[in-house]
């Protein structure tokens, strides 16, 4: 076991230990990878009922300017996404890009009145904060929110739980946010998540986080879920993991994330790396992110080479493992554009053997968001 003395802890650390979690280092934090139920059971519980995740290691920021539009315009210089058109309470997925069009981090933005709220990945939160501080223009300011925990409740019964404790949440739809009082605790919740299921991500003061988590865990549908199942759930949902599926060396165009970049931004540019992305939209890209279904039972993990029938390397798996909802292995990765069509066959080079696989449409498990 590794010494975990230098690792940071979230406000829920003691609760995780009390619940019997296996704690592992993740992005500088000591985090629960699974509870006694185990990854498979936790995964299936989330797909069947409601799972509670501690995602307090992620970075929460508040960005303010002279008004919302000024703050959003300042952020848009660093992100290719359209945040200016958000109406109050609306949420949108986005990313920071670099000069080469590569992705520095992916993130969620919510318009909270005149404030722009942002949630970023744990491993990137320090560089993201520095990037924002150095580059926000026109008097816009960023403030980190280390005094707030972030909890996600996900699954087909998540909404029933939250509506029971905060009836006004019933009118929220997918990718919207609102200040709520949940079981008497002031929170800011968005109807979003990282599992493909309906659910909420809820920002709550550290001082009330344990009480809040216990209140949710007291509901019959809810069980605690660790980072292990979080990863298998997001992979089945076809969602990217920053640092694996998207990095500084992959662009949103290659990653198949152009859907997150509105027409106005594509035409106008005005963000870091715009010229690279505009050239890729015009001329195409050499590689594309695809879903791959291995034919056998052996999982093809990240960094598995993808080859064609003649043994020539055509790409690499960036996330791969076992999909508990499907009962078989699943993977995503990048392949040469000419080999990216759905239905195409590839070979996955696992431990020196070529295992056949097929390029498939993602998600592997249909999304069940509450859109209307």
């Amino acid at each position: 076991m590794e010494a975990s003395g230098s690792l940071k802890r979230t406000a829920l650390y003691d609760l995780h230990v009390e619940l019997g979690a296996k704690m592992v280092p993740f992005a500088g934090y000591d985090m629960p990878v699974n509870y006694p139920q185990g990854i498979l059971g936790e995964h299936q519980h989330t797909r069947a009922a409601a799972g509670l995740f501690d995602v307090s290691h992620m970075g929460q920021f508040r960005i303010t300017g002279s008004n919302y539009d000024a703050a959003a315009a300042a952020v848009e210089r660093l992100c290719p996404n359209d945040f200016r058109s958000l109406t109050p309470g609306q949420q949108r997925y986005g990313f920071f890009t670099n000069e080469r069009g590569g992705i520095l981090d992916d993130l969620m933005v919510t318009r909270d009145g005149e404030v722009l709220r942002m949630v970023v990945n744990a491993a990137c939160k320090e560089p993201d904060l520095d990037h924002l501080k150095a580059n926000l223009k026109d008097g816009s300011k960023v403030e980190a929110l280390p005094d707030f925990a972030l909890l996600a409740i996900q699954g087909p019964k998540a909404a029933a739980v939250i509506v029971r404790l905060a009836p006004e949440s019933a009118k929220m739809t997918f990718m919207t946010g609102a200040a709520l009082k949940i079981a008497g605790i002031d929170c800011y919740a968005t109807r979003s998540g990282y599992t493909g299921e309906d659910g909420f991500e809820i920002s709550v003061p550290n001082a009330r986080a344990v009480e809040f988590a216990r209140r949710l865990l007291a509901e019959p549908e809810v069980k605690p879920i660790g980072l292990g199942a979080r990863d298998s759930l997001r992979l089945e949902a076809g969602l990217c993991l920053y640092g694996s599926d998207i990095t500084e060396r992959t662009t949103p165009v290659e990653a198949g994330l152009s859907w997150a970049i509105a027409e106005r931004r594509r035409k106008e540019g005005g963000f870091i790396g715009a010229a690279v992305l505009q050239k890729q939209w015009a001329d195409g890209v050499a590689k594309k992110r695809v879903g791959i279904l291995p034919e056998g039972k052996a999982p093809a993990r990240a960094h598995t080479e993808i080859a064609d029938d003649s043994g020539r390397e055509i790409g690499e798996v960036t996330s791969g493992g076992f999909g508990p909802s499907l009962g078989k292995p699943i993977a995503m990765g990048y392949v040469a554009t000419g080999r990216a069509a759905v239905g195409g066959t590839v070979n996955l080079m696992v431990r020196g053997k070529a295992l056949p696989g097929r390029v498939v449409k993602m998600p592997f498990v249909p999304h069940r968001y509450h859109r209307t």
Partner: protein
Amino acid sequence: MSAIRYTKEHEWVKVDGDTATVGISPYAQEQLGDVVFVELPEVGKKVEKGKEMAVVESVKAASEVYAPIGGEVLEVNSALTEAPATVNEDAMGKGWFAKLKLANKAELDGLMDEAAYKAYCDSLH
């Protein structure tokens, strides 16, 4: 009755005459979590003590299983291919990986007995 011996890598070996049955320990299966795939050696293959013999994969990761003792593979537990979770349910019994024809009984000498292995696992916490 034959004694069971363990390795520091958490494999077990049970010798009966010149046949050695090998698998992974309850401690190993618990550390791995839910086993979803097992890759077994081919029958007839000669494995060397301490070298890779099989692969066991949990939801999270793939791990190598090393041969606790050298020998020729006589039989593999092909039931694990369809039901890999057997390794979690009965690591010391139905979750066995392979039977080997013992090459050199003296290789057993460096392995831990039940009591030594228990003390070793306790020291890992």
